[in-house]
């Protein structure tokens, strides 16, 4: 049985991510934030389940679809929101935007806009841990579409060859943009991709936060014990479009309806009683999460814009500004 603190954390995060994304979707419709937004409704259990198995300072990489990872990695929600709003107190000082929400101090190596850019970077962090006998875990998140990209393959091959403990976590959410996974897969199972590297692989239900948590825990231990990378596939469904504004016409209504039965938030609520959580507990989590989200947006709304010239900061370490 999970301890209460952990359960509180898990449920709070699940609701926070869901409420945050729902709020962002609304704001996106009103066109009141700049730039692209890739929300992750349907991925909450993967974000939270994996992160629940990690330590605070473990390394992860994320993608443009990073809000859930950032929230689950305990990044500051006010700063996240401020970043999405393009304000100077944003988590990346307004330079990143929604696609690049990331906080190195929380172990986020980066949210990469280039598909499959993350796995090699995480391999490097894991290599560093290995060389320095470090204890941090290293986990790369990517989508089903990324498994076709050469950078993923090169990272996987080197990780296996060098016996690097790390997790390749593939979120199989049924779509890469407008392309269905069952069309783009060459193999019966997505995780068969790991056979090219004789890499241990497990698949799990990405809608069940506890299954995700347990499988990740198991994989982390095995990966460390055997000093080898492990491939984890979590199946879920992308309720969000590729980005806000996507018509999603290619996602059949029956498919969405079916997927709703396994909505990770719904499942977590259904599972609550197994963890001795009451309806009241759930209501408390929800209220908590909603408050957190609301105050983040209130915060962001009042934050100052950066100055234009701030664009010149921090390109390099050892000289503060580039003149032009």
């Amino acid at each position, binding site marked *: 049985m999970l301890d209460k603190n952990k359960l509180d954390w898990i449920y709070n995060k699940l609701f926070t991510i869901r409420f945050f994304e729902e709020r962002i979707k609304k704001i996106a419709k009103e066109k009141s934030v*700049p*730039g*692209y937004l890739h929300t992750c409704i349907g991925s909450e259990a993967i974000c939270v389940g994996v992160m629940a198995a990690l330590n605070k300072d473990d390394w992860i990489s994320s993608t443009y679809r990073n809000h859930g990872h950032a929230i689950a990695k305990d990044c500051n929600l006010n700063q996240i929101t401020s970043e999405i709003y*393009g*304000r*100077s107190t*944003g988590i*990346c000082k*307004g*330079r*990143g*935007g*929604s*696609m*690049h929400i990331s906080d190195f101090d929380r172990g986020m190596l980066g949210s*990469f*806009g*280039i*598909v*499959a850019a993350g796995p090699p970077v995480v391999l490097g962090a894991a290599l560093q841990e290995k060389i320095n006998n470090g204890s941090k875990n290293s986990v790369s998140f990517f989508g089903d*579409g*990324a498994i*076709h*990209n*050469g*950078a993923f393959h090169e990272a996987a091959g080197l990780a296996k060859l060098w016996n690097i403990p790390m997790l390749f976590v593939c979120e199989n959410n049924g779509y*890469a*943009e*407008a*392309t*269905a*996974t*069952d*069309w*783009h897969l060459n193999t019966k199972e997505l995780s068969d991709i790991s056979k090219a590297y004789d890499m241990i692989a497990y698949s799990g239900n990405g809608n069940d936060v506890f299954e995700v948590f347990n499988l990740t825990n198991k994989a982390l231990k095995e990966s460390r014990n055997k000093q080898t990378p492990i491939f984890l596939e979590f199946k879920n469904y992308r309720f969000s479009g590729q980005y806000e504004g996507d*018509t999603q*016409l*290619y*996602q*059949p209504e029956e498919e969405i309806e079916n997927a709703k039965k396994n909505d990770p938030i719904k499942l977590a609520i259904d599972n609550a009683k197994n963890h001795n959580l009451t309806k009241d507990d759930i209501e408390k989590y929800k209220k908590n999460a909603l408050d957190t989200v609301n105050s983040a947006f209130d915060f962001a709304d009042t934050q100052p*814009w*950066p*100055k*234009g*010239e*701030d*664009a*010149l900061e921090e*390109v390099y370490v050892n000289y503060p500004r*580039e*003149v*032009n």
Partner: protein
Amino acid sequence: MPIKTVKEAINDALVQSFENDKNVILMGEDIAGGKGREQYRGTQDAWGGPFGVTQGLFTKFGGERVRDTTIAEAGFFGAAVGAAMTGLRPIVELMYVDFAGVCFDQMMNQAAKVRYMFGGKQKVPMVVRTVVGAGFRAGSEHSQTLYSLYTHIPGLKVVAPYDAYDAKGLLLSSIQDDDPVIFMEHKRLYMTSCEVPDDLKPIPLGKGKIRKNGSDVTIVAIQRMNLFAEEAAKELENNNISCEIIDPRSYSPLDEDLIYTSVKKTGRVIIVDESNPKCSLASEISSLISENCFSDLKSGVIKITAPHTPVPFSPPMEDFYIPSSKKIGNAAKELLNA
């Protein structure tokens, strides 16, 4: 004459090229869209790329010629090279030019060099259509221009239209061209429009265009920068400064003569390029003018470019990053006081 957006003009050029030459094919990620869900009503042509530019092509020309790919740019760019050598005229879409780095080898070492290094027997009639440019609040990895990466490489041609008219005419040419062409579309120009005749003839690559005649200063403007050059020129009329605006349209080959003729007349040059400054098109054009028109110059060639930084996300910073009509105007005033 019909008014078209750049987006429509490009779609028109594609349709026309598909109709005229059955060897034309298109490959890219979600250039049709909805793959695996075709059975679902109305979704067989669900996307047309992220900007909808290729929408309708799949329905018109079918899946043999309009091919959705996986996220494997090195794979399908290499395939375009092989298909081009053996008789097709493939167009590949690089969704954002920011992804150039994952398939740069296919362009730099294969597309650009096979003809030369294998003795001149092959040709590689392929086009890379790609989306460039800042101003969309799209952040550091979806906003670059990277014109100069491709322009540097011998064997490639590089084209970047400003308006719908040029977009159509130059794309028609690029598809008919027997060499690999990088065709760069600016995301902030897609919805701009102008008159485009239905029977527009292909516009030859390597020919620039005088967008405005003038006598005091030559502004060489790269793609979207023509907008700001025109704004600045209008404003500068109040100061009795007459600007000549040149849009080279094609960067490799470059219409040097058109530029030199203008410089001879004005003796003053401002080059406006949205790219990062170092080794940019602005640098290249400036260096050519310095070498070939020195005695015509009344002052040094001014480059107005983005700073040497990635593209920032937040609107005030991104606006600062992009060259502005104000910067152009100030530079022109300074030149004419000097």
